[in-house]
């Protein structure tokens, strides 16, 4: 439990620090972004059926699954257009293989974008190969328009390398 409290405290510290900075830099933004991370815990019931729950990350080690989420909301009076959320993957995680295949991703640090199946990666010998989940460096979501008062949530699953 001690660890859980520490983790929650860490999340609170960052949220209280990061939000005012961005608000200051951008003026009063009508759009709010709120990030969170949850760990995926797999449990087995008495019948042997596996089920997963999202829990606060307490103890996490390589191979564990995390879900990074971002809640967005348009708190202004006007609609916002061409809403694009870009999320660089932390280097210590890779995109989980069960991520949405339609997710727009980059495997070159955000230079080129597409669904994973359309991207390639250069091998050391100059040949190329189809990009894999572990190659993904960024994920991106595009929403054409958010009406005033509208909100939503974006998520991507990751596995600790």
């Amino acid at each position, binding site marked *: 439990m001690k660890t859980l409290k520490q983790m929650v405290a860490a999340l609170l510290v960052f949220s209280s620090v*990061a939000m005012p900075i961005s608000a200051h830099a951008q003026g009063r933004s*009508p759009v709010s972004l709120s*990030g969170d991370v949850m760990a995926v815990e797999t449990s087995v019931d008495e019948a042997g059926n596996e089920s997963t729950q999202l829990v606060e990350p307490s103890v*996490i080690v*390589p191979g564990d699954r995390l879900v990074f989420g971002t809640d*967005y909301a348009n708190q202004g009076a*006007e609609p916002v257009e061409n809403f*694009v959320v870009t999320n660089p993957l932390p280097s210590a995680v890779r995109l989980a*293989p069960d991520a949405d295949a339609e997710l727009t991703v980059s495997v070159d640090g955000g230079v080129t974008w597409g669904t994973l199946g359309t991207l390639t990666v250069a091998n050391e010998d100059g040949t190329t190969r189809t990009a894999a989940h572990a190659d993904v460096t960024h994920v991106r979501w595009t929403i054409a328009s958010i009406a005033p008062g509208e909100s939503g949530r974006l998520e991507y699953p990751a596995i600790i390398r």
Partner: protein
Amino acid sequence: MSLFATPVVALFTLSAPAYADGVSAGTLIENTATATYEDGDGPQTVDSNTVVVRVDELLDVTVTSLDSGPIGVQPGEAVLTYEVTNQGNGPEAYELTANPTVAGNDFDTTVVNIAVDTNGNGTYDPGVDEILTAPETTQVLDADEALRVFVIVTVPAGVTDGQASDVELLAEAVTGTGAPGTVFAGRGVDGGDAIVGATGADDSAVGTLIVGITSVDLTKSVSVTDPFGGTNAVPGSVATFTIIANVAGSGSVDDLVVTDAIPEGTTYVDGTLTLDSVDLTDASGDDAGEASDADGISVDLGTVAGGTVHSITFDVTVD
């Protein structure tokens, strides 16, 4: 659902090797999303808060025997070689325990020492390789670092050829061991937690000794042919000596050299030395044998495995 289950499983299998060298304990995973959009005032940018999680320390270890097979031993000292590998993602030391009384042993050895291959040459060097003192604990191994260790044992007197004995080496993470998932709060890198991995944070491996007591038995016989077609030893009779070298046991002997003097009152017949019915020259250095009337015969059989029989013959004439 079953249609989707198979490809998902396959993908997990393909990506499994990425787990092998995991992210180091203490690594901070920080995630921030950035949004760009357009409102009435033009393009805008907003960042999310940054969420941070710290990677905890996974406790995992493997022990393997580096001996390619059973080690042939005789009463006295024997050395077994093992490798301890930190399979976790953070620095960890391991307490080592050598157990010479493994179920099924034909005999039990006595553990003398556990030593570290300090000079890394793969061979136990007394006086060079560090001997661990109780409680025998390795130095701190980095993630994925392997350490070669030796267990020095004494094989008791009275063992018989072919008897076998196992010696088990156990390594336990100093931070703690237990069922996978056991958490040691605050005991990981940078004050993070340590969690027991799939190995239980302990592992053991068995090395095997097999007694190879090898004996060499020499049997010498002679047959005489006299000049008259009989078998009497009279001047001019030819005596053919046969030496049977019978090497018995499960081991082998090195540098086995069979020598014999030419008996008094007889003379070696040049060019009659044979080994296993193949002629050898009398000269030294060109093959396994050499012979002369003054120095007798000598046949170098080299390393001979147990269960091998060699036959050496030579002729003399009675003076």
